[in-house]
């Protein structure tokens, strides 16, 4: 197969088609302009947002995130960050749906512990069931437990998003073997969410066969977020192409040099 026989295929989530396999968060940036520049540089089409109380004291003309990232130009993925129970997560996403005029594609995350931000998979499963019954398309953040990942698919989640390592840790992919089992077992898109620290981490996730990567801190807290956004775009694309190209087999040694073994000057 030559390079031109390969056409980048879209990532399909709940019937929606996306060219970019990089999903980005919008938190931790210096200001909205930096957020927008980083998002645009990353090429991401899906952006996560948090749902919070409106600051009522604010100036009427003070800009909001939505002024910089208009919802008709990006696919918003409202999240349930900060929720520790199924009830809170469901409540938050119902409000998000009202806020975004019926938009039903959401990121469910139910946390178990404020220190580690490790997901509570019991509450996550419970919330996912309620949301799916209520008509939501649920992309779900979870641990890298293959059994839980499969259960989340079975109850109808449209994408399963296991962590690479803890949220905001930048520790990279700690258990590629579990991710491989999840990718191997599930039919819905598998997106690594959380823990990516730098470009090579994203490439490794894609080389494993993940359908996409979701990140925020790695870009937003880089010394130059815009440049890191550009790096992440390339690393996700490179990892995807490497996965599709099919890597060579690893060998301790090969005794098969790349240069001819004949015609050597004697």
């Amino acid at each position: 197969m030559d390079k031109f026989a390969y056409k980048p295929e879209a990532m399909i989530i709940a019937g929606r088609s996306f060219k970019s396999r990089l999903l980005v968060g919008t938190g931790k940036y210096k200001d909205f302009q930096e957020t927008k520049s980083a998002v645009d540089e990353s090429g991401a089409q899906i952006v996560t947002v948090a749902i919070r109380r409106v600051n009522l004291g604010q100036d009427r003309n003070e800009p909001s995130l939505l002024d910089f990232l208009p919802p008709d130009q990006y696919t918003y993925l409202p999240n349930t960050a900060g929720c520790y129970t199924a009830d809170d997560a469901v409540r938050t996403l119902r409000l998000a749906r009202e806020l975004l005029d019926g938009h039903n594609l959401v990121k469910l995350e139910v946390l178990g512990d404020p220190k580690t931000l490790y997901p509570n998979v019991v509450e996550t499963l419970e919330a996912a069931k309620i949301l799916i019954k209520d008509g939501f398309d649920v992309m779900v953040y979870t641990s890298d437990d293959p059994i839980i990942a499969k259960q989340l698919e079975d109850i109808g989640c449209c994408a399963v998003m296991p962590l690479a390592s803890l949220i905001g840790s930048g520790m990279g992919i700690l258990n590629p073997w579990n991710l491989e089992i999840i990718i191997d077992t599930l039919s819905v898109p598998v997106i690594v969410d959380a823990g990516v620290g730098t470009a090579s981490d994203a490439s490794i996730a894609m080389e494993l066969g993940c359908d996409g990567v979701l990140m925020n801190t790695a870009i937003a807290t880089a010394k130059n977020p815009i440049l890191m956004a550009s790096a992440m775009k390339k690393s996700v694309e490179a990892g995807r192409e490497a996965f599709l190209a099919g890597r060579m087999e690893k060998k301790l040694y090969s005794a098969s040099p790349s240069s001819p073994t004949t015609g050597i000057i004697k």
Partner: protein
Amino acid sequence: MKISINGKIKVFDTDILTFESLVKELNLVGKRFAIEKNGEIIPKSHFADHQLSNGDKLEIIGAVGGG
């Protein structure tokens, strides 16, 4: 009447207050937000005729940066 909005008590100098008037009062016209009253979402289409009562608890939310 007294209404709790995002955890803070706000006193209004009237006995009849619709969501539409409340939104004007709070300078939220043209902004993107959603409102929950006593745990129940009030759709924007109901703002004109839906009234507030003394002691109602409101949550008014919007989208902010997040991961």
